[in-house]
């Protein structure tokens, strides 16, 4: 976990998202995947700037 962002450096999920993942419905998982996509974008922008 990154102490700065609170995200897993590997999968870009929060602790709560990882803890709940096993019990999520497919729709909930898709929603988290969407969030991860946004985080990835934000991360690559950070790197670029």
């Amino acid at each position: 976990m990154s102490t700065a962002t609170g995200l897993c450096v590997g999968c870009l999920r929060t602790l709560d998202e990882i803890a709940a993942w096993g019990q999520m419905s497919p729709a909930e998982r898709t929603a988290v995947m969407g969030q991860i996509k946004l985080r990835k974008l934000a991360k690559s922008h950070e790197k670029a700037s």
Partner: protein
Amino acid sequence: MTQALPSSMRFIERDWLSANQILFFEDDGSASVVDTGYVKHAALTCALLERLLGGRPLTRILNTHLHSDHCGGNAALAQQFGAAILVPSGSFQLARDWQLEALSFAATGQRCERFIPDGSIHPGQQFNLGSLAWEVHAAAGHDPQSIMLFAPAHRILISADALWEDGFGVTFPELSGESGFQEQQEVLDRIESLQPTMVIPGHGPIFFALDSALARARARLAWLKEDPVRNARYALKVLVKFIMLDLEQATEALLIEQLGSAQVFRDASAQAGLSAEQALHWSLESLVKAGALRRQGELLISP
């Protein structure tokens, strides 16, 4: 048909380096956990459990078997929460004495922080977890000492690496010429006779379609039995990918240092008719071709 987990249970789905955790809330306010992941992720496992425990004391850790991806968080969890560690009876003394070779850590080139088991569980035993009665069943094949847990009232099976949604764990005993396929067959027969409606595997999501999972596992077992070199090649790729998940990036020279003297890797190489160096090279090529690894100059990288 899907089915909800009983309210006293939580399922933490992890990955291929760390096996899944199953957390149980007991009537007396305490909690128990089955399997603890790989040592590299021990801090994350502690943090996940702390979050889900919400202040409850974790009093028991159970292991389905003592492979490094299932018991690598034992030491950290026992230290942080003071939990007692219960292991399969066949592995108890080895773990007490921390016999590295016999425990499979050194023999696979994998790591595990030393822990001290406090007690054992054995097939045939009844066990209460999360205020539910669980039967302990033998699950040899992947590991001769492995157990699985079955709750008859809810027809839930905790299958460890004996049955996944698509396949099962490497049949390790066969690599050194011991019997494993027959035991794997017996485990699948036992699972079929139990007829669970919900299976919580050691890796991957919970699944409900037992018949199709058993059919895939049986087809795979028949394919492996037909030519045991297939089991050896599968083992080689699994061992290399596992080390790469641990190291994240490495040169071929470092990998041969890690795996070349590991007995299980040597056995699998010999069974595949290759030297350890050839076996490593072949595994890397296969994993790169499959997209499970990529090469960047001298470096192999786990994506």
